């Protein structure tokens, strides 16, 4: 999901640009809070809804062909070209309709007042550093249920519903409580251990399938002056990209579900301890690149691309994000995390993959059907291919990679997904409980452990404490796996 999604996962500066930050400065201070509050009281009457159009095979969502459709896109790592192309298709289908398309990085600052005022646009790509909190939007009934879209016939094959053309996990990720689907993630990210196949070849090694092999490989690399691992030390919530599927592999999917559900003692599961201890070993044996805890995501990726470390936990956007520093003959590859031994609950290949780039249709949109129709167009094979070839990322459309040339990382991602089959896990902490996952578990626990300032046992205890606190906190909305 391109650098865009890294914005969801990190808060550093670099590509997450500086300007946004400096603009945010202006928004801070007491007077500003009150300026914002002015928006709340400004909430007036909701805008008038467009009348439904005529339902037909070509127009299954009954879009009013004369109504204006407004689409606001997050202009991030994926750019806006793919969406503009899709808008052209919409305009072709509804020549009488006016389409208002805007691409911005400032999703929250431009749209928050409009949500408050009851006149939001019809389709929003709610992504980036200024993403609006999904849980709150859902909780406050600001989003439209996308079930009509999912049950509509797909663009390419009227016999197939849209929901049957999507990759595993996409529909579930859009649900919060129960059946309604509030979000459609358009991009598809593969998380895991990223490395240079060339570097492994030069060490005469294969990708390790067990942790013992991993440690042996790191030792081999260390003798050549190369560190085994590095990670985004300043944003340690990148570590779970590799650690969470490993926990699932060792202890089964249920362990991750229990963690997501904030169940008591979920973190005390032996699988968690095993995996934490395995990772801690990397620190103890000196296999982590020196200085890693002080590196941000860009700096760690740069060190890794320069060959200072073999592996980095990351998502498939890394190929685009670090394109400038990854050498041409790097032969980028991704693999699922190694396991411990044969007693692991899930097979090797168990990987984390999930949707990115969340699209929403506001409940109070004037032309919600138009917004959904635009999404239906984007989920066609042609649009998906266009997306993949333009931004080097998979889309939510299952398939759409035949006949286009894939970059090494993308190709390896597709292979990893094939190897995984049904063993794709999708931990939800990072979208359900942002503060808990990033700040508390990520920075204050995992980061501390991998910097050697806390033992695995202490880390688990602290995380469990935070999780229990979050479970009790009535100011946070709680979710459960279905």
């Amino acid at each position, binding site marked *: 999901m391109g650098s865009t999604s890294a914005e969801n996962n990190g*808060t550093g*500066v670099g590509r997450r640009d*500086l300007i946004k*930050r*400096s603009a*945010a*400065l*202006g*928004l*801070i*201070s*007491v*007077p500003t*809070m*009150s*300026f*914002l*509050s*002015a928006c*709340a*009281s400004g*909430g007036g009457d909701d805008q008038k809804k467009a009348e439904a159009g005529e339902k037909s095979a070509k127009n299954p969502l009954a879009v009013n062909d004369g109504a204006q459709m407004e689409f606001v896109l997050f202009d991030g790592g994926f750019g806006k070209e793919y969406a503009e192309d899709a808008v052209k298709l919409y305009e072709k289908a509804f020549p009488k309709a006016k389409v208002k398309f805007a691409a911005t990085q400032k999703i*929250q600052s431009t749209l*928050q007042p409009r*949500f*408050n*005022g*009851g006149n939001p646009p019809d389709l929003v790509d709610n992504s980036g550093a*200024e993403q*609006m*909190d999904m*849980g*709150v*939007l859902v*909780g*406050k*009934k*600001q989003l439209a249920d996308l079930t009509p879209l999912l049950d509509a016939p797909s663009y390419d094959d009227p016999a197939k519903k849209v929901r049957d053309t999507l990759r595993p996990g996409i529909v579930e990720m859009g649900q919060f409580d129960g059946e309604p689907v509030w979000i459609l993630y358009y991009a598809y990210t593969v998380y895991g251990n990223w490395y240079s196949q060339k570097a492994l070849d030069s060490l005469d090694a294969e990708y390790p399938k067990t942790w013992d092999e991993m440690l042996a490989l790191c030792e081999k690399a260390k003798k050549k002056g190369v560190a085994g691992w590095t990670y985004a*030390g*300043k*944003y*340690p919530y990148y570590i779970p990209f590799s650690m969470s599927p490993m926990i699932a592999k060792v202890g089964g999917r249920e362990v991750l579900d229990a963690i997501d559900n904030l169940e008591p003692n979920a973190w005390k599961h032996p699988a968690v301890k095993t995996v934490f201890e395995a990772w801690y070993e990397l620190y103890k044996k000196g296999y982590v*690149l*020196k*200085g*890693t*805890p*002080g*590196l941000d995501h860009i*700096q760690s990726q740069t*060190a890794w691309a320069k060959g*200072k470390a073999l592996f980095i936990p990351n998502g498939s956007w890394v190929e685009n994000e670090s394109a400038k520093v990854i050498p041409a003959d790097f032969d980028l590859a991704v693999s699922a995390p190694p396991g411990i031994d044969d007693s692991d609950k899930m097979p090797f290949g168990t990987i984390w993959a999930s949707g990115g780039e969340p699209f929403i249709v506001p409940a109070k949109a004037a032309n919600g059907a138009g917004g959904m129709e635009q999404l239906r167009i984007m989920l066609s094979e042609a649009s998906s291919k266009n997306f993949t070839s333009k931004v080097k990322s998979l889309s939510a459309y299952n398939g759409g990679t035949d006949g286009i040339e894939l970059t090494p990382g993308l190709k390896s991602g597709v292979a990893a997904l094939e190897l995984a089959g049904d063993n794709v896990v999708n931990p939800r902490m990072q979208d359900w409980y*942002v*503060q808990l996952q990033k*700040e508390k578990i990520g*920075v*204050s626990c995992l*980061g*501390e452990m991998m*910097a050697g300032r806390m033992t695995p046992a202490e880390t688990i205890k602290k995380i469990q404490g935070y999780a229990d606190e979050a479970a009790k906190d009535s100011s946070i909305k709680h979710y459960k796996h279905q």
Partner: protein
Amino acid sequence: MQHGKYRFIVGFLAVPLGLYALFVIWPFIQSIYYSFTDWTGLSPEFKMVGFDNYSRMLDDDIFWKSLQHSVMFALLVPLVTLSLALFFSFMINVGGRRRRGGPAITGVRGSGFYKIVYFFPQVLSIAIVALLFQFAYNPDSGAINSLLRGIGLDSVQPLWLGDPDIALWCVMAVLVWSTVGFFVVLFSAGMASIPAELYEAALLDGANRATTFFKVTLPLLWDTVQSGWVYMGILALGAESFAVVQIMTTGPGGPDYSTTVMVLYVYQKAFRDGQAAYATTIGVALLVVTLAFAAVVMRLGRRERLEY
């Protein structure tokens, strides 16, 4: 004339006061009002919840940590910045030795050059400064650790921003670096208006540099120092500290909450967690801290104004 005086004054003041009330006072009242609601910031609906946000704030460990760091920012950063700035501007303007044929009171050699150099960081936006230092603090290939390696200190390779024990100091150092130049210029201007005869008299009486500074310069510059102090404290409590913490630190605010400050917490609660009402509550606390800071500085700094 006496009769219509107040009406006359009110007539002139009504418009500016009205604007002030509308754009400054009213928002303050509004944000205090919102701190008693459960407004998320993402929908127009909210209800009153009384003091819930306040009691929650008092139980919130992260709030207390951020408060503690903000207070440290407000006390230490102005102290260090202003002391350095006073020292530099004294040396630039007064601290030089007399040179043959030159004026009796002068700065150190090359003082014009220093003045420009000190002012340099002020030209850069705080966001750029923070970004530059983020690179400098990079433990792997950053300037500081490379320098340490270069002079043979291979064993001394701190993690800087990655180490909870020193991260806050690293951040404060950046703020000091970026603001000291402004105060050097401000104090230089103040010193320029102190009559040279006073210094000459002090010199004739045999005063050394330190005595001159404490007995002549500082008392005559006191007003400037005091307003500089308030100004710097508010910077350190507000926008500047937010910028450096948000851009530079782990997390941001980490590692392990070692650098989080109140403004950052307001921002995170309002814009990340969708808890705008709670954010305004912390904002109110920040307002109290800022007002208290200004009051304390004004009170402690009250001195008789010297005429010259």
